[in-house]
């Protein structure tokens, strides 16, 4: 089984230097790209069926094709790597930026060539202090070796790249909010359209892709679209995917596996199953803003279509496991407190609705729940549904709650009727 993104990441936790990266084929994808036209690069990426790894799964090559090209296109154009990764339970991009920063940089350079960008930013989560040092070091190496700066590898193509470390707010991960943060403003999302591909950073054409998405690009250019498609077990997309698991499993971690690996294989084989004394009760398949799946759904393939069919979203592919000794109501409370705190406050359903939701859940946990609270919570899941809010934060916040009300309703009822949470000790 091939693992192009992670196979060279070192076990001792140190990052690949430029020399080490080059020795395993690094920057070969860039050399191939510079030999053909930007349109050819875009077509290879389209043909590879690479889909965005930031959560929504949008086809990457298609996204790029919306950027205005040609001599009359606005300039400068920008490439931005989204390394905000603040969704609770998500820790996959950390592995890539700590272990192999050159892979990300190379992917961004190739992407910049494809859309004709001359400036690029890596937007990194504030907490990744070690990654920030490693990226900065790798950027210096890349400039020195002529992979960045003027006339890259002797070609007419030039690109600058800078690291921006965030100051922490979940909404910064939303791509238009991220652009506001990069402009030094409050990170409120922007109206779409215009889409960033047309009018993004400082009003110029901008492509925002996830760190994992960019990290795939060098391999696609080095080995071709057909090879990339053959890595996947999914009809809907090519390549491998970083899957992860946290919670009370035996071996919580990240694994690079074929896209479309089954949920059961990830949990049983890779995560080693549940810790002794714990049973699987449910799980969020792709981060905090995805619907709960249940133990009878272990056969589903983790890809964009199948997880959606099963009533959830693949999201980031990092699974949060809920065991039988963890309270589903308490878990929803924890999640909704996070979303309420991180709401940017721009639109009413989210700004008012999320704190109210958290308050009701807190009352349930403290034994002060009332029968009508179930209706209030259900109302919130509709009030904050897609289409009613300015961005996807609030609808995402409702996904774990609406599915918990469906799958773990008896726990909500029990909290209300017994005026206590039976999971709390002492």
């Amino acid at each position, binding site marked *: 089984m091939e693992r192009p993104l992670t196979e060279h990441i070192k076990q001792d936790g140190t990052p690949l230097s430029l020399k080490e990266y080059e020795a395993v084929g690094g920057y070969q994808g860039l050399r191939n790209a510079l030999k053909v036209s930007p349109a050819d690069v875009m077509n290879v990426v389209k043909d590879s069926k690479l889909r965005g790894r930031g959560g929504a799964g949008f086809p990457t090559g298609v996204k790029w094709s919306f950027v205005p090209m040609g001599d009359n296109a606005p300039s400068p154009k920008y490439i931005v790597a989204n390394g905000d*990764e*603040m*969704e*609770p*339970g*998500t*820790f996959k*991009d*950390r592995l890539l930026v700590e272990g192999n920063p050159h892979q990300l940089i190379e992917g961004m350079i190739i992407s910049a060539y494809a859309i004709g960008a001359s*400036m690029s930013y890596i937007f990194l*989560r*504030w*907490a*990744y*202090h*070690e990654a920030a040092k490693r990226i900065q070091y790798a950027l210096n190496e890349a400039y020195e070796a002529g992979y960045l700066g003027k006339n890259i590898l002797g070609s007419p193509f030039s690109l*600058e790249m*800078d690291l*921006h*470390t*965030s*100051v*922490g*707010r*979940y909404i910064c991960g939303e791509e238009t909010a991220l652009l506001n*943060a*990069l*402009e*030094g*403003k*409050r*990170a409120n999302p922007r109206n779409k359209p215009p889409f960033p591909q047309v009018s993004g950073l*400082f009003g110029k054409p901008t492509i925002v892709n996830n760190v994992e998405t960019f990290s795939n690009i060098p391999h696609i250019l080095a080995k071709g679209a057909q090879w990339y498609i053959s890595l996947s077990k999914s009809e809907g997309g090519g390549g491998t995917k970083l899957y*992860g*698991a*946290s*919670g*009370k499993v035996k071996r*919580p*971690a*990240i694994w690079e596996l074929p896209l479309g690996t089954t949920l059961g294989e990830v949990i049983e084989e890779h995560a080693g199953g549940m810790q002794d004394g714990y049973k699987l009760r449910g799980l969020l398949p792709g981060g*905090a803003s995805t619907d709960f799946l249940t133990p009878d759904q272990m056969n589903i393939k983790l890809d964009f279509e199948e997880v959606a069919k099963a009533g959830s979203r693949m999201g980031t592919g*990092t699974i*949060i*496991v*809920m*065991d039988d000794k*963890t309270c589903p109501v*308490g*878990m929803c409370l*924890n*999640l909704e407190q*996070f979303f309420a*705190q*991180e709401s*940017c406050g721009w639109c009413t359903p989210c700004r008012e609705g999320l704190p109210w939701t958290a308050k009701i859940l807190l009352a349930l946990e403290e034994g002060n729940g009332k029968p009508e609270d179930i209706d209030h919570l259900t109302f919130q899941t509709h009030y904050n549904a897609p289409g009613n809010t300015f961005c996807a934060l609030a609808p995402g916040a409702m996904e774990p709650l609406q599915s918990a009300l469906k799958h773990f309703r008896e726990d909500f009822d029990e909290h209300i009727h017994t005026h206590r949470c039976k999971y709390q000790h002492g």
Partner: protein
Amino acid sequence: MVTAQVISNEARQEIEKLFHHLPHKQAACIDALKIVQKYNRWVSDEALQELAPILEMSVHEIDSVATFYNIIFRRPVGRHVILLCNSVSCWIMGYEEIKKALKDKLKIDFGMTTKDDRFTFLPIPCLGTCDHAPAMIIDEDLYRDLKPDQLDEILAKYE
């Protein structure tokens, strides 16, 4: 009248360097706040007043940016800041226990600073190390797979 300058010349120079690649000075706002905080530990009202002309922004505009973000501190903090992750995976893996142990040891709750100014104790959303929960950051150092009996040794590293 001469008033004391809270943003040092050194910090000013570092801020000026940010303008280099940017279409306008406001774009450097967040990085400038980070620089002020690096030198002063937190961002005071006086610092905002001094930043305003440097960034060509109003004090109010800068404050609306400063208060938006989680790790720009608009109140004084101690010599070391403990950021304990309170998000879902850490919560499942024993965050409550770590929080209680830290509260007992420091004799303060979230949002407070110890009397000797040594530690400020704050909750923080997910640190992206959920496979090693529970986790916390002190200053820039990450601690993972926390157990209550390790805390004394960890805290002792910070004067």
